[in-house]
C-alpha cells in the first residue's frame, strides 16, 4: 500500500485516491492555440525511473488534488503537498 500523508486528512491508503499522473507537465494557457504544445502536454511523458512528481486526488476524503513526490522504483513517498499553490504554501511537508 502506498500511504499518502494528505495534508488535510493525515496518512491514508492510496486506494482512497485517484491517480492523476505526471505533475511536472504544464498545461498550456486556456487560450494557447499552439497545437504542438498541447500535443506534448497531453501525450508525452518523461516517465522517470526514480523520483516522480505526480498528482493524486483524495476522492474518498477531502477531494483535494495533491502533489506527491514518489520514487517509482522503491515506491517511497518523499513529499506530499496540496496541489493548489495557495494551499501548498501553508504546509510544511
Amino acid at each position, binding site marked *: 500500500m502506498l500511504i499518502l500523508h494528505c495534508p488535510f486528512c493525515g496518512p491514508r491508503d492510496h486506494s482512497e485516491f485517484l491517480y492523476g499522473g505526471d505533475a511536472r507537465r504544464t498545461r498550456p494557457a486556456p487560450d494557447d492555440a499552439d497545437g504542438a504544445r498541447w*500535443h506534448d502536454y497531453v501525450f508525452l*511523458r518523461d516517465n522517470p525511473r526514480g523520483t516522480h512528481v505526480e498528482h493524486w486526488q483524495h476522492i474518498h476524503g477531502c477531494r483535494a488534488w495533491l502533489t506527491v513526490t514518489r520514487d517509482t522504483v522503491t515506491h517511497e513517498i518523499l513529499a506530499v503537498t496540496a496541489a493548489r499553490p495557495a494551499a501548498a504554501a501553508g504546509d510544511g511537508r
Partner: protein
Amino acid sequence: MPPKSQMSEYSVLSLLREGLTGHTGWPRAWRDPAPKAEYDTVIIGGGGHGLATAYYLAKNHGITDVAVLEKGWLGGGNVGRNTTIVRSNYMIPGNTEFYEFSLKLWEGLSQDLNYNVMVSQRGQLNLVNGQAQLDAAARRGNVMRANGIDAELLTPAAVRRRVPFLDFSPAARFPIYGALYQPRAGTVRHDAVAWGFARGADRRGVDLIQNCEVTGFRIERGRVTGVETTRGTIGARRVGLAVAGSSGQVAALAGLRLPIESHVLQAFVTEPLKPLLDYVIGFGAAHFYISQSDKGGLVYGGDLDGYNSYAQRGNLPLIEEVASAAASLMPCVSRLRQVREWGGIMDMSMDGSPIIAATPVDGLYLNAGWCYGGFKATPASGWCFAHTIATGRPHELNARFALDRFRAGAHIDEKGAGPTPNAH
C-alpha cells in the same frame, strides 16, 4: 553457419535416444558469445519481442549479422511475467488484422521453431455483465467475423454448459448476460516462447548477448551508428529497441520522449490442481481474467495498480480486488490458495495500442507501448518489426502503429479511454 552441434532437432526420437544415454548429448539451446565490435543490426532487449524480431530478421530477411543485447537474462521481462493468454478479439482497424496475424503465427509456431511452446487453443469466454457490454461484445464479434476471425456470442445457458460452476445466480452483483467466445484463443507456455525464439535465432546465427546493458547511443548527424553498453561499444547500422517496460528510459538515451507511462500489472497463480477450468475466461465487470496452466495452477490477473512504477511488484488493494473478482465469478475458489504473485512493468501508451515504427533518428526503430497486449502479439510484433527494420518501411500490419500518430490524431483506442494510460 553455426556449428553442427547447434543443429540438433528436437523430436520424440531424439528424446528417446538421449534418454538412453543420460541426456548428455543435448547441445546448448543457444550459445553464449562475446559481443563483436560491430553488427549490421542490433536489437536491444532479449525479451519475447526482441528475440522474435531477431528470429524473423534472419528467417524472413536473411539478415543474420544481428546481436540481441539483454541487460539481464533472456526472457526476464514481461514475456515471463504475464498470464499467457493469446487471442485476437480486437475491434479497431489495425489491431484486428495485426492480432489475428499473430494468432495465425502462434498456431504454427512450435513446428516453425522446432520448440514446443504449448499453444493451447482452448477457447476464451469473455463474459459480459450488462446490456451495454453485450452490445459492445456484439460489435466486437461482428468485426471479428467480418474479418475472418472466429467469434460467437453465447447466451448465459451456453456459457453454463461450458463452465457450470460460475456464479449464474441472479443475486450476483454483476449477473452474466452472455459471453463473446473465441474458440481459437487460448494460452501459450510463456517462458518457452522466449526460449524457442532464442534458440531459433541462435541457430540462424544471431548472437544473443546476456548481461549486456545499453547505456547510450552513438548518433552521428542524425543517424545511429552504434550503442554503448556495459560490455563496450557495439557498432550497428540499424538499431531496434524492444524493451517494453523500460522504453521511455532507453529511448531517452537517444533523446526521444515517448507517449508512454510505465505501470505495474500484477498476476497470480494458485497451487496446482487437477483440471478444473478448461477455458480462458475474461470477466468484464471486474476486469479479471483466468485460465488454468497445464501444470494445474489457476493463473489470473486484474487491473493495473494504477500509478507509475518500475517495481516488479504491486500492492495489496489490487490483490484483494482480484481475489474478490475471482470468487465472485467462481465461488468455489475461496478455499484454493494463491501461491505466488508477481508484477510486470507495462508500457502504457496514450491510446492503449502499440508502436512499431521508425523514429526521428535514422536507423533507430522502436517497438514499444504494448500495454496489456504484448505477450499475445509476440510473433507478429517480431515479424513486423523485422520487416520495418529490414526494409525501412512498416509492414502493412503495423503501418498504423506509428510513433507520431498522436500529432495527426490517428488514435487506435480500443477502449475509448483517451490519453489516460492507466485507464486502458
